[in-house]
């Protein structure tokens, strides 16, 4: 299962001929090592937010979840999500999502959750972001997707793909997962990826998936660290319909536990870009 293919860094911003050339190389080397491997060819950019315009994020792409949801968005999370500039803004080429420790409408923390629901969704493709993550006990950032039919097909039926989840208290490790009917929450299909001699909160890293018919490949930087196929899930495969994107910074909750006295606030997640190819 663990196909650690090495991608060349910078592939994704290459011109089309360059990409074609590289793909040829991939096809070649791919055949020489593993004949059954699916070759990725999502090369048409369909959504690109480089966060180059200071101010509020592009309203044509991003909406917001506001408040505390039900049971802390289903996870006993502690933050109140807002769309205030204290919690979300675009500055110097980055989307900044900031978790603050403050008393706000009954919550002890505020933060933000952006989503493309109703604005952008897609079936299959390459979904990629470049992020410098925050850190500390109880800090829980994520770049993820939900089935676009979630309002009529409740979770976990709609499906969830977690392209990147991170526990602030484990600064070298991220997780990629899928949730669906019969394999959700603690039973999700998941795998972690740990950096050697580096960590996710000191520099930018690329997190992405290549999602096609009956597979989701998870990669960090130039390392493909997991592939999930229908054979891996313990229930119905629901990843064959449109999904929308979410990017958020949660505080506390069952996945990470609460912040403690050593957690430093504010904590900011810097998103360099979000790109989707088909």
């Amino acid at each position: 299962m663990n196909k650690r293919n090495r991608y060349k860094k910078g592939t994704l911003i290459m011109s089309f001929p360059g990409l074609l050339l590289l793909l040829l190389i991939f096809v070649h080397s791919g055949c020489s090592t593993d004949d059954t491997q699916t070759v990725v060819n999502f090369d048409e950019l369909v959504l690109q937010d480089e966060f180059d315009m200071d101010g509020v994020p592009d309203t044509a792409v991003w909406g917001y979840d506001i408040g505390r949801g039900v049971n802390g968005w289903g996870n006993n999370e502690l933050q109140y999500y807002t769309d205030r500039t204290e919690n979300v803004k675009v500055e110097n080429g980055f989307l900044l999502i900031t978790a603050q420790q403050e008393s706000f409408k009954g919550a002890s923390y505020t933060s933000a959750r952006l989503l493309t629901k109703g604005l952008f969704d897609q079936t299959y493709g390459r979904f990629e972001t470049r992020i410098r993550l925050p850190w500390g006990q109880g800090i829980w950032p994520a770049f993820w997707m939900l089935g676009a039919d979630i309002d009529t097909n409740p979770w976990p039926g709609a499906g969830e793909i977690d392209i990147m989840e991170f526990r602030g208290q484990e600064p070298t490790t991220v997780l990629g997962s899928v949730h669906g009917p019969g394999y959700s929450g603690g039973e999700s299909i998941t795998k972690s990826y740990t950096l050697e001699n580096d960590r996710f909160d000191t520099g930018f890293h690329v997190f992405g998936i290549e999602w096609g018919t009956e597979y989701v490949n998870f990669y960090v930087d130039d390392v493909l660290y997991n592939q999930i196929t229908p054979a891996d899930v313990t229930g119905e495969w629901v990843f064959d319909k449109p999904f929308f994107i979410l990017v958020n910074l949660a505080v506390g909750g069952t996945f990470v536990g609460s912040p403690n006295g050593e957690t430093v606030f504010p904590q900011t997640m810097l998103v360099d870009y979000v790109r989707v190819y088909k």
Partner: protein
Amino acid sequence: MKDIKIISLKIAVLFGVIFTVTSGCERSLSGDVDFASFPVTAEVFIDGFSGGLEYRPFEGSKLDAFIVDDQERYEGTASMRFNVPNVGDPAGAFAGAIFPDNGGRNLSGYDALTFWARASQGATINEIGFGNDFGENKFLVTLPNMRISTAWTKYIIPIPDPTRLTNEKGMFWYSEGPENNNGYTFWIDELKFEKLGTVAQPRPAIFNGEDRVEQTFIGSSFTVTGTQTFNLASGLNQTVSAAPSYFTFTSTNPDVARVNELGVVSILDQGTAKITAVLAGVRAAGSLTVESLGNFTPPLIPTRDAANVISIFSDAYTNVPVDFYNGFFGGQTTLGGADLVIDGNNIIRYTELNFVATEFKNPTIDITQMTHLHVDVQVENPVNTGDFVTIELGDFGANAAFGGGDDSSGRVTFTSDTLKTRTWVPFDIPLTDFGLTNRSNLAQLFFITEGTNDTQPGTITDLLVDNMYFYRQE
């Protein structure tokens, strides 16, 4: 004279031409030249001493506490074994040593000292670190109170700022005493400097991150204490004490207060100055604001013959062993103690004073041959009617210990008319005025400034004390 000038100009021009040509040649070579540097050897002790490493125990320590152990080890063929002595071990009261490489090493490429360790029992090692070379210890790093268990565990002591360690001699040091009076053994293995790449999120601090304000005088000095905290790959926040030389200090008013690279703040003039610090580009939490009141007038230097004196606190005499100048008792708010040094003169400064005890019970002292208590006090607050300073002496009686029914104490009070703001007042109090039952096991001296009834409320909170001694009137 003119001719000589012209000649020297010609020579200068000639030299200039030669220099230009020469430096031109050097420029083309410089890309291939490596500057001489100290070795970058990372290993300190793997299965034996690394090249240049020495063992230098502390004075008073058990000299043979350290041995190389080829039985117990984490990896390889040997480990470092440390035998911490029992209390009362005639060979030494504690185990402690430095392991220098006096040739110096360039450690700037590493971010931590790491090792594996285990002990014969759960214990807390008092101090362990690097940067101690029995010299200036400019880049001393100490991990205080390191918990150790019976299982081999990897420990990481981060380097506060590796760029400073281009010529470091202190590779490793430790100091540890008995646990609950009992000795034990611990082992260290695979001791080396590493570039982990995961030592991150530096949060330096001075004065424990507090914003301190101190009233002081010209000639006084303070020493900055610093720490560096990193988040490690495990998620643990590891704090080490970092020598002042790791920091760069700034004073808002260098005419009033100046800091040297060893972290000593010197007060030079009247006025206010705030001291802040930066470590490796990161502003340190905490600061020191000094409010210099100007010149300090010290109390008169005692002139009594030392043979007739038992001194508790004075630079003029050898003092008896004192347990503390500010012991904690329930209800006490007093801060401070023997921490003010002005032109080499140690002075006790109490702030937020309500009552405070100096205790000298190890051993208690016998003042039966003495006739008086001398003490110089200076009240720093405005003195109001009803203010007072009460001095109380406590004797522990024949059992030389607190309690047991044989203790006695007595007080003498000085009312507001005998006190004066910012002026030293010498008190010479006949010991008979205290009315003690015994004077052969004296152990306590109290200052009390807060009354227990409305007629004597007592508003004095800031008090300087010096030259506290008993003497025999000839």
